[in-house]
């Protein structure tokens, strides 16, 4: 098999959704086995996909289908508050990912039964040396089979759009709070130092909340901007 054929096969699977945006691709060794060709041939095919921005190669984590929403897209969204520096998910470290009961509070937030299940995903993202703490809650019902690894290459705003019900709107709550002990360690600051907490509630046009994101950043080091009319 020629590298061009392998390239075309992978490209087609990416285009027709066989490998959706943000999903993990088999690594080069696995691809080599699958197509029964040399490593060089595989590398050439993958390199071409990477060069065309269709595949992302992440050091230490493997190959991913490139996300659709770029940093530039996020910057062009009006009415959304975002940090002044571009958002990119460099160096993701997962703290905790598990399924849990919704419980009384999130039952009220999501307007579902407290016995349903939620993905509870916490991770830190390092952007230009600055740490952001992320905490994402997704209803299992809306994101069956959610693979948290997609967050290694995908922005949260795109990840929350991969469920069965798609959000249209976001309600953002923005507050200055004090660092708890755990947070102060993450940011290498003192306990009680100021931290910005953004709560993003993603909802469908009908007002059904499908995802909730908490984002924490060191307040003294982060500025945000917003355009509005």
């Amino acid at each position, binding site marked *: 098999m020629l590298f061009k054929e392998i390239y075309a096969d992978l490209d087609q699977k990416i285009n027709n959704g066989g490998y959706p945006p943000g999903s993990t691709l088999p690594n080069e060794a696995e691809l080599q086995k699958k197509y029964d060709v040399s490593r060089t041939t595989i590398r050439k095919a993958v390199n071409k996909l990477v060069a065309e921005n269709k595949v992302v190669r992440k050091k230490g984590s493997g190959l991913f289908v490139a996300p659709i929403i770029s940093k530039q897209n996020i910057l062009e969204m009006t009415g959304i508050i975002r940090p002044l520096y571009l958002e990119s998910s460099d160096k993701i470290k997962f703290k905790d990912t*598990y399924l849990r009961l919704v419980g*009384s509070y999130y039952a009220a937030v999501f307007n579902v039964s407290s016995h349903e299940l939620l993905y509870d995903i916490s991770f830190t993202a390092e952007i230009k040396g600055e740490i952001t703490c992320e905490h994402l809650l997704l209803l299992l019902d809306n994101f069956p089979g959610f693979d948290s690894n997609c967050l290694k290459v995908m922005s949260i705003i795109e990840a929350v759009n991969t469920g069965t019900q798609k959000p249209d709107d976001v309600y953002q709550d*923005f507050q200055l709070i004090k660092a708890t002990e755990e947070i102060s360690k993450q940011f290498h600051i003192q306990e009680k130092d100021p931290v910005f907490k953004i709560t993003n509630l993603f909802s469908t046009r009908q007002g059904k909340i499908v995802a909730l994101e908490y984002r924490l950043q060191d*307040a*003294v080091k982060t*500025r945000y901007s917003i355009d*509005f009319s």
Partner: protein
Amino acid sequence: MEFKERTAAVQVQEYLEFLIHFKKVSELPSQREISEKLQVSRNAVKHALDRLKDEGQIQAKERTGIISNKKIDINMLGMDSMTTELKNKTVKIEHLATTIEKMPGRLKDFFNAPEGLAIKIARIRFVKDIPLTYEITYFNQTDFTRLANIDFTNKSLYEVLEKEYQIRPTYGRESIGCFLADEKISTLLQVKKGTPLYQVNSFNYQDDDFPIESTTQYLLGNKFKYHFNANNIYDYQED
């Protein structure tokens, strides 16, 4: 993904958030009541309360126990002025001073005025006699000369602007950061030096890209929160 029970502290925190945000309880149950109700240790309750305190969701009140902390919620979208935002509160505005100064370097581009003068208006806003915000607004002196002579005590800047010049900002840009109160601002807002404040810089225009004013606001960090509402977020695509 594996199933896991929430930690006891997380359970307590979410239970209290439910009481605060959905049951609108202003006085929370005691630590003992909470630990008995949820069958968790007093330590877990303490941990959750500390966290909610750090987040400014609750505050301890002498003798009466723990109460929820109601922050003033400001909608950042739309061109409503601060006066409109606080409409349900008894607000007093103290006009500290109006001065005419050389255009500050950082505003030369915004006002398109490399040379020239700026009118600088400094005000403090009080709610129930507590100073909550300190605001400094700049205008280009050549465009709004008459504003220099106006007493803004208890007056909305935008209302005056509309009356005097039949003009109102229609769009803008804001940037928000955190500023630790310095000597001057801590005195004005009657807080300790180093208190975290929101620092909001806004740049406001009229339709035809005409720059009207730029304001720097300092707001007490633990008294305010902001919210934004964006619709059709995925419709950003290429115009």
